[in-house]
Every structure is written in C-alpha cells, then in structure tokens.
C-alpha cells in the first residue's frame, strides 16, 4: 500500500470532488487521465498514457496479454501511484488519493479476478458499497438515531433495486461465494454501481462466459450508461464485443499507446495488427507471453 497523501491536500481534494460534482462536471470530461507513467523497478509498465472519457461515454482499452491494461486500472483507482501524470474526475484532481477516497470521488471498478466479500450475503456485498455516502458514525450506529435508521433503510432499498436491475434479486440471501460464475460478475457490477460512480471501470466483464451470457451482459453494459448516468471504461479480450459497443478504443502494447480512435479505424491500424499477430513476415501468429 502506498504512503498516504499529505492529509490536508487529500481531504481538500476529496471534499472538492463532491462539491464540484454538480458544477464542474458539465464541461470537464468524466475521466481525464493525462500522460500517466509508472515503472516497477526498471520495467516501464505504463508510459505516457492519456485517456479522456466524456460523461456517459463508453470507451474500450485493449491490448495483448501483459500490455498493462490492468495496471492502468490500478493507477486510475489509486492502488498504484503514478510516477508522473495526472488523473481528474469531472475536473477534480484525484491522483495521489487513496483508493477509498477515489471511490468516494466517483470512480468504481470491477476486478478481473473476481473479488467479492465471499462469506457475506449477496445483499450485504452491495450494502457495503451503498453505504459509501452514508453519514452516520459509530455513535449514531450504537444509538440507532433517526438519521441512522433512515440511511440504513435507504441503503437497503438501493441495494435491492440494484440487485433487481442486475437480475440477481432472487439470490440476495445466498453467500456470494456460492453464486455461479456469471452471477458473481453481475454482483461485482452491482456493487460497483452502488457507490454512485461517475465513471465505471469494467475489467473483462465477459471473460469465461458463453455466447448467451455474453449477449445478455452486452445489453446490460449498454443500458447502464443511460440508467446510471455513468461513463464506462472497458477492458475486454472479446474483440467482437469491444468493436461493437465502444465509441472509442485505446490500444496498449507493453504499456505504450500504439493506437486510438474509433473502432473501425483501430481495427485496420497496422501497428495494432502487428501487436496482436506478431511481426507479419514471421509467418506464425505469436502472441506475447502470458504475464497476467
């Protein structure tokens, strides 16, 4: 875990994030990452990455295995701290904040390797996230004051609504670990949405799904933008899905942006084809070694 940011600046920025939510958001893009770089030891994992997702935008981030896509998510969500560059949510700087502060500022994510609260019920998984904007502290909790009671009721209502939208309401009492794989992915999305995000990062939401499930998930992702007024950044290996639903695509290879633009343009970019298929005169398709 990285050291905490200077407390004064951090809390000011976190407060600013919510204060600016109404005002600044109209003009500024929902997510604006500017020339992010990070190196681990000598290895440059991500170099000069810039991303701009407008409000309600749906962007894709693709690249061969080990290209640094998940590292980008970890940079955006504060798990890693960038060596240089800046991250803005709705115009407010969030880089340097801790992950929980960034989540409060309006950035939510799902995980490639699912990370649910395994022993907790499906409902409680979402309720943890839905409580992010609750104001009741420990004392109100112990005394069960009217504010606390109202907030808990609101949290429960919102959590149930989200489970219904994601189609897993009938499983709310089950332990998260007992859900089938596809429902676990849905629960991760429900949990992320419960934090009332401005931007949602989805890390391989259809990995391991069959065609039927993929189709359903695709419809769901598209509907989220309108329904929750959220911008989406998507990492996905399923090219068909990415090309179909994303308005804009950024292609990474070895941490470097090798192409960006509309799906049709990216699809025919020689650099992208080379990154995915290896050097053309090699003959064989040689995907880079699995580093995931």
């Amino acid at each position, binding site marked *: 875990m990285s050291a905490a940011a200077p407390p004064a600046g951090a809390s000011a920025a976190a407060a600013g994030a919510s204060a600016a939510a109404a005002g600044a958001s109209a003009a500024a893009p929902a997510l604006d990452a500017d020339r992010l770089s990070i190196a681990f030891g000598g290895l440059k994992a991500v170099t000069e990455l810039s991303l701009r997702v407008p409000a309600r935008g749906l962007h894709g981030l693709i690249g061969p295995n080990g290209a640094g896509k998940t590292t980008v998510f970890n940079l955006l969500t504060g798990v890693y701290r960038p060596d240089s560059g800046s991250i803005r949510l709705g115009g407010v700087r969030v880089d340097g904040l801790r992950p929980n502060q960034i989540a409060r500022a309006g950035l939510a994510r799902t*995980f490639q390797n699912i990370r*649910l609260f395994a022993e*907790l019920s499906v409902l409680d998984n979402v309720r943890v996230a839905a409580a*992010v904007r609750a104001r009741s502290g*420990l004392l109100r909790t112990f005394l069960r*004051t009217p504010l606390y009671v109202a907030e808990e009721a609101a949290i429960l209502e919102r959590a149930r609504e989200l489970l219904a939208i994601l189609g897993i309401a009938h499983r709310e009492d089950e332990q998260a670990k007992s859900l089938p794989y596809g429902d676990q992915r849905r629960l991760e999305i429900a949990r992320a949405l419960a934090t009332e995000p401005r931007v949602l990062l989805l890390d391989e939401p259809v990995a391991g799904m069959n065609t039927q499930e993929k189709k359903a998930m695709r419809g769901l992702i598209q509907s989220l933008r309108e329904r929750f007024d959220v911008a989406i950044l998507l990492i996905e290996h399923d090219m068909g899905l990415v090309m179909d639903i994303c308005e804009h695509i950024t292609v990474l290879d070895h941490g470097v942006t090798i192409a960006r633009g509309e799906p049709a343009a990216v699809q025919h970019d020689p650099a992208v084809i080379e990154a995915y298929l290896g050097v053309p005169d090699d003959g064989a398709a040689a995907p880079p070694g699995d580093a995931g």
Partner: protein
Amino acid sequence: MKTLAERAAAHRPALVRAVAGSAWPIAVGFAFAYLMQTALAPAVGDFYGKLMLDVGIAILVGVALNIVNGFAGQFSIGHAGFMAVGGYVAAGIVFYGSIKLWGSRDIHGGFLGPGELLLVAGCVIGGLVAALAGLLVGLPSLRVRGDYLAIVTLGFGEIVRVLLQQTDDVVMDPRAVEAASAWSLADNLGGALGFFGAPRYLDPKNPFWIWLFVMIVLLVAYRLKTSSKGRQLLAVRENEVAAEAVGVPTTRVKVSAFVLSAFFAGIGGGLYAHELGNSLRPADLGFQKSIDLVIIVVLGGMGSISGVVVAATALTILPEVFREFSEYRMIFYALALVLVMILRPQGLFGIRELWELGPWRRVFRRGAS
C-alpha cells in the same frame, strides 16, 4: 437513480418510533441485569454465583475480542494486555480514590451507592485508557499483515506485563495516600506481587455491574454487526482490496475496531479487578489469558456473537465440572482448535448467529446477514 441522501429523507422515521426502537433493548438489558441481581443472585450459592461472575466477564471480553478477531479479521493474541491496562487503572482509581474520598479502602455504600459509582467510573476510565493503548497498538500494525499483527499484539501484552512488574508497592497507609499526588500513586501498583487490597464490589450476591456491561457489549456488538459500519469491518476481513475499491477506509476501520475492542476489554479488566476471589497480578492477565480468549472466539465462531456467548459460558463452566481432568484441559482445547480449523475453518458457528442456523432460519429470515 435517486441519491442516497434523497432516499434517506423519504425514510425518516417518526421520532417517537425511533426513540422507542432505539431504547427498548437498552431497557431490556437493564431489566436483565437487575433481575440477575435481585432474583437469581440470592437464589444460587457462592460456588455457582462466583462461576456466573466469571462467565459474565468471559462473555464481555470474548465479545470484545470478537469485534477485532471475528468482525474485522485482524488477529489479536494479546488482548489480556488490554484487560490488564483497564484492570490496573480501575483498581488504582477505586483503591486510592476510596482512601482519598472516604478515608478507607473498604466498600463504601450499598447497591448503586457512591462506592459502586466510583467503581463504574474507574472501569470506564480504565476502558478509555485501554482504548488509547489499542490505538497505539493498532496504528503501527496497520502497515503490516495479519500474522505480524498477531505478534505485535503478543509483544504488547508482554510489554504491559513487564512494565506492571516494575511498579512499586501499593501504599496502604491512608495518611500517606492522602499526602501523595494522584500522579505519583500511578507508580504504586504492587509490582510482580500484584495489586492487592482493591475493594471487592463484585461478589456472588452483587453481580449487577458485570451483567449490565455484558448487556451493553452485546447490544453494541449486535448493532455494529447489523449496521453499515459493521459490514465495513466484515468487508475488510473478507477482502481488503475490494473493500478499499468500494470506498471503505480500511485503515480507519481497522483502528476503530481495535479501539472499540480494547475499550470493552479494559472495562472487563476493571470488573475483573474488583471481583471477589480474583488476584490482580501481571502474570494473571498475561499470555495464557490471551490464549483463553482466543480459544473462546475461535471455537465460538469468528463473527458470531451468540456463538461467542455459548463458547464463553461452556469454556468457563466445563473446567469446573471436569476438575479431575484439569491436566488435560489445555491439551483438549489445543486439539479442538486444530481440528476445528481443519474441519470447520469458519469456527463452529461461523459468521452466523444461532437463530440463523437450522430450522430457526426461516423464522428469522429478514435479509440481514
């Protein structure tokens, strides 16, 4: 979608209802403690009366430890250290306070009398000092993972023991006590021989305060577990990275759990110090005591309040029943610990409460955890 604040405004309960909902369990808790004092205590003999005092304190401290070990998943094996801090602070306040206020260290006043109020004040202050110690232990261990934390807490318990052993003899002479400042008396806690002479307000005929604090810790633990704050603890225990990602300030949550748990353990120590038949020596609240508490929490179920109540009761009573096998007691516990971990890793009851298991489950099903 509506924001949380908008939704909450729509769910605002009527004031009367809210107050009633908040207060009735507190009233029930008082009534229970009062019944233990007035109905049960006169009916049982000294042997069972004393046993019930021990059960009460085991429940109190076991449930407190469960907040850290069970809810937050942060392992403490030095919790007797917090008991020792609370116990010595409370004993010092009550013993020297009695002499300064009333000129003698004897029991002063009857049920709910001034002496007992001094006892409660001493226990609460002892709890607060223990909570401060919890903060000091919790802060460095935020940077380290679970198993290191265990070692830090163990080290803390040992340091408390060593420091208490360095203190000077208890000042017994009332005139010397009255002459001395409160600050200088803080060093007269009896050293390795122990703090003798604190008035024993809690005896088989007078268990009220123990049961009142047991009721308070049960209510606090239950309300915590079924609240958003409690779910934050459970989320930290389940997956720290995911908890951070949904906005849970994991470091603050962990420290709060530590502080809260240490507070009640300190109160438990304060009560322990004033219970008839207990000796307050640094070694009595050392490693062995910490391990006893861990066994209660692990066997009861890490996260289950009712499970810990059952385990605390059973593990306090059984050794008395099977006295002739006392040699084998710890061997049996040790095997139980290993077997439970291998066969039922979540503890006997796991995270669930008794009424959420088996046939009862349908009756109490309300969508809560």
